[in-house]
Every structure is written in C-alpha cells, then in structure tokens.
C-alpha cells in the first residue's frame, strides 16, 4: 500500500459525501417542521386578516354568510379528547398493570402484542365500525338508559341519538388505549425488582405493592403515555367525523352532537370557495397544529419536572 493512499484527515470523498447526504436528509426534518408552520401560517393570513381574534373566540361557522369562528370546534376537540382520557386512561392503566405485574408469562407473550395490534387498525375502519356497530348496539342503549335515569343533570341533556360528543369520546378512548397502555407498561416493567421486594417485605398485598412501588416509580412514564394519548386524540379525524354528529354548536352536554377542528375540516374543505373562505379552513388546520404542538411541548415540560432520578422514556 503506497503512502500516497493516506487520505487527508482520514476522510475520503465518499465518506464526506455519505455524511453530507444524510445530513441533508436529516436537515429535511428541520425544514419540514418549519414548512408546516410557515406554509400553513402563510395561507391562513387572508383569514387571520379578515377575522382576527374573533376566529377563535366566536362561535358561528357560517360559510354562506362568510362568518368563520371555531370556538365550538376547539371546545369539541378538547372535550372529546378529555373524555377519551377519562375513559381510556383507567382502562389502559389496568391493561398495563395486568401485563406488567399480574399476567403469567405465557399469556403475556400473546396478549401484549394483541393489545398493540389495536393501534394498527386504520382509523377509517374504526370509524366505520363505530358508526354501524358500536354506536347503535352499545352506546345508544347506554345513552338512553343514562338519559332516562339521570337526564336532569345538564351533562346528560340532549338527543341521545348516539352521534354525539360522548361517542366521539368513547371511540377516541378505544383508539388511544394501545398507546397509553404500551408506554405505561414499559414504564412499569422498568421498576427495579428491589423496589417491589421492599414493598412486599413490608407486608403489602399485590395491589398495594403496585400502588406504592410501581405507580410511584413509573409515574413519569405513565404521564408521558397519557400525553401521547391526548395528542393522538386531538388529531384524530375519520373516526370522530363519523360519530360526532357534526353540529356547529357546542353544548356542554355529552349527548349533544358536536364538532372538532379535524371533523370540521373533513366536512367542509370542499364546500368553501374564494380565497378568504379557503383560508379560513386552512386556519382551522393552523389552530389544530398549534394545539398539537402545545400538547407536545407541555408534555415535555411536565416530564422534565417529574424526571428526578433518570426515569427513561421518550
């Protein structure tokens, strides 16, 4: 091997090329984020200029009269997602505890993956099934029962047709379960055995030990999972669109139809004509993007506060 084959600084052109190429593609990711914010922001400008703050504060979405206000949809997005958490998180944690602490090894190897398979189902199939099976067969009877017995509570007012906020919350709950459960389960399985033994040795029952050691230690991971589920819920479009009733008015009742930012876009995108109207739809996307980014940011900030002694995850 001739001395002349020693490259300068030990780098070859191919090396530099490879590195620069992958750098470029990685930079594309940075570019992509900026693209989202800038492009969507830019195309929202006509609407922002025309409607300003009333866009997010007002409650009337009326294309023929050129009134575009999305507060009901913002509320619908938040409400349906919170309902999803209220219903979905306890179930997810129950599943996670089962898989991490209670299930014998054999069943766990099968059940775990099956739970995660739920996440692979396309959202349109979820929505379609919810529309024709879940709502008529399960949710509507429940709503009728609740409406009949507890209908005097404002939360249970409304038509109880099944195509309402409650159904949206339920289908979202089902869809976020695999995410919250998987992340929580990972966090729980990371609890050192010594912690569990310490709690057992003090004379704790299984559930007491789980409460004391597992939940305590895995707290930040579980919270991360919950935020992941929340982020997923606010962005879901198809399943929600099919069952939420698509009403342009937000009523503070589970059994009244509603609308989310995502379902609004899905319903109305082709109806709008004219630059400002199209821009109004895009601005809805901007608001949704903002919510999603805020949720993500909020998750990381809260996690940073909780991470005391090197809890892993995300």
């Amino acid at each position: 091997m001739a001395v002349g084959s020693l490259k300068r600084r030990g780098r070859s052109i191919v090396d530099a090329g490879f590195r620069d190429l992958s750098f470029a593609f990685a930079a594309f990711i940075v570019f992509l984020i900026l693209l989202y914010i800038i492009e969507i922001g830019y195309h929202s400008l006509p609407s922002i200029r025309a409607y300003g703050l009333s866009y997010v504060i007002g409650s009337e979405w009326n294309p023929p009269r050129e009134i575009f206000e999305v507060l009901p949809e913002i509320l619908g997005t938040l409400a349906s997602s919170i309902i999803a958490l209220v219903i979905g998180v306890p179930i997810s944690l129950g599943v996670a505890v089962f898989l991490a602490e209670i299930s014998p090894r054999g069943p766990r190897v099968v059940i775990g993956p099956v739970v995660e398979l739920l996440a692979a189902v396309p959202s349109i199939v979820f929505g379609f099934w919810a529309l024709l099976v879940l709502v008529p067969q399960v949710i509507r009877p429940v709503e009728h029962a609740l409406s009949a017995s507890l209908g005097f509570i404002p939360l249970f007012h409304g038509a109880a047709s099944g195509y309402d906020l409650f159904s949206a919350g339920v289908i979202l709950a089902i869809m976020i379960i695999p995410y919250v459960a998987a992340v929580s389960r990972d966090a729980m399985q990371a609890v050192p055995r010594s912690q569990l033994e310490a709690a057992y040795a003090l004379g704790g029952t299984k559930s007491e030990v789980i409460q004391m050691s597992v939940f305590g230690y895995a707290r930040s991971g579980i919270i991360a999972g919950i935020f992941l589920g929340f982020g997923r819920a606010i962005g879901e479009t198809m399943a929600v669109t099919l069952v939420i009733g698509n009403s342009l008015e937000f009523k503070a009742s589970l059994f009244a139809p509603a609308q989310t930012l995502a379902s609004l876009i899905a319903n109305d995108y082709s109806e709008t004509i004219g630059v400002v109207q199209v821009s109004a739809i895009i601005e809805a996307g901007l608001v949704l993007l903002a919510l999603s980014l805020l949720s993500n940011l909020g998750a990381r900030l809260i996690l940073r506060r909780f991470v005391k002694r090197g809890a892993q995850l995300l």
Partner: protein
Amino acid sequence: MSSEAERLAAGKDGVAVSQEPDTTSVAKTKTLVEVQGLNAWYGPQQILSGVSMQFSSNRVTAIIGPSGCGKSTLVRCINRLHELVPNAKLTGSILLDGADIYGPQVDPVDVRRRIGMVFQKPNPFPNMSIRDNVVAGLKLAGVRDKKKLDEVAKSALQKAFLWDEVKDKLSNSGASISGGQQQRLCIARALAVEPEVLLMDEPCSALDPTATAKIEDLVITLKRNYTVIIVTHNMQQASRVADYTAFMYLGKLIEYDETASMFETPKEALTERYITGKFG
C-alpha cells in the same frame, strides 16, 4: 382501625429484657423460628436440600457460606418472598412460634409483616420522603393518625441510629442520603411495623467500612427487642455480631453452633476449611 393497626399504634409488647449491656444480654430465649426439612427450587434447579434448623428469639444468628450455598434463598423462604419468583418451588415447613407459616390458611402478607427484611442493596422508595419511607409499612396496615406515624417514625429512626442525621430533613427524598444512611433507613422502615423477626440479607456488602461498622453496632442492639437472622459472607462480621452461626454449603446446613465455638473448634471438616479460607 383494624385490630392489627391498633396493635401497631399502641406499641409492641415485647419480651421482657434485662437492662444489661447488649453483648451479655441474658433475655429469656426460646425457639422462635424453626425450619423443618426445607427444600427449595428455582425452576428445575434445587437450591436448598433438607435444611432444618432453629433460630432463638432475641438473639442474632448468622448464616455464612460461600456464594451459591443457598443462604439468601433460605431467608427468602422464611419471609415467603421466595414464592414470588415465577417457577419457584418449596417443600417442607417453617414454624413461627409453633405455627407453620406455609400452612393452608396462612396469609403470606401477614407473615411478611411479622418477619421483616433488609436487603443487600439499600432500596428506599425514591419517590417518598424519608419519613414516609419509614412509615410506609404502617400506612399499608391502615394506620392513618399523623401524630402516631410521626412518633413511630422518630422511634424507628432512633432505633436504627439514623434519627440525629436526618431529623432536619425528614421530607427529603429517601434516595437523597448516602448508601449507609439509606440502609439504616431501610432498617428503620422494617422496624417500624414491629416485626418479631428481622432478616438481613448481606446488609453491609454494598457499604463502606464506616457504614458497615455503624450497622453492626446497630444489629447488636436490636436483639433486645427482635430476633435477628443475618446472612453474611464476612466471617469476621459473624463473629462480631452473632450469638449463633450456621454454616451452609451447596444447599445443605453443614454446622450450627454458638459463634465462638464454631470459629474456635468447628466440628465439620468442611466448616474448618471454609473458616480457614481454603475456599470461599
């Protein structure tokens, strides 16, 4: 409050003890724990074979032996921790005050409250304060009265020789103190539920000599009110703290005697070889 909680809240009615210095304690003693024909497995591997021995109340008994001789497994059988491992099996019986802890009606949770354990590596609960760590066992048993909990916390920390060092930082995390202090915290935590027996599984092996010395002094004082069984790989430690010593090898009990006798005049050849360092 449950009767158990009441009992804990009222304080233990211990065995009568004399006021003499610890090392010559002549408190009355009887057989408190008796292991009979114990065999234990992890899966197909047998760890203990036909172990039978007795532990005297208000005494410190050390269990020594080379790595893998089963001493840790033995103590984990005594507080029914062994069965929590998947594929763990066990035959034989262990009597606590005459009653088999593996009896059909016996609740393992109850056994573990009466037989406490301190582990090799200190394991305080990091997401709880020092004070909450100490009273964790009490809270499990249902004691809610804050005053009572604080009292017990103080007394347990005093018994564990830790009170002076942490009394101003009781609300700090249990993991915020040094390794030796954490171990004493774990001892306090175990003592707070007033067990009858305290099992210690190589409690000093992760600690430096100063911390070790503190804990050894502590162990000697404990036998006033508790029965201590300490697993150790350190023979000097056994001779410093233990009244009785048991030597195990490959899952069997080889010899059991008063500590002084065993170290000066071991009866078994195997014991003699281990003590003189020919293997270990």
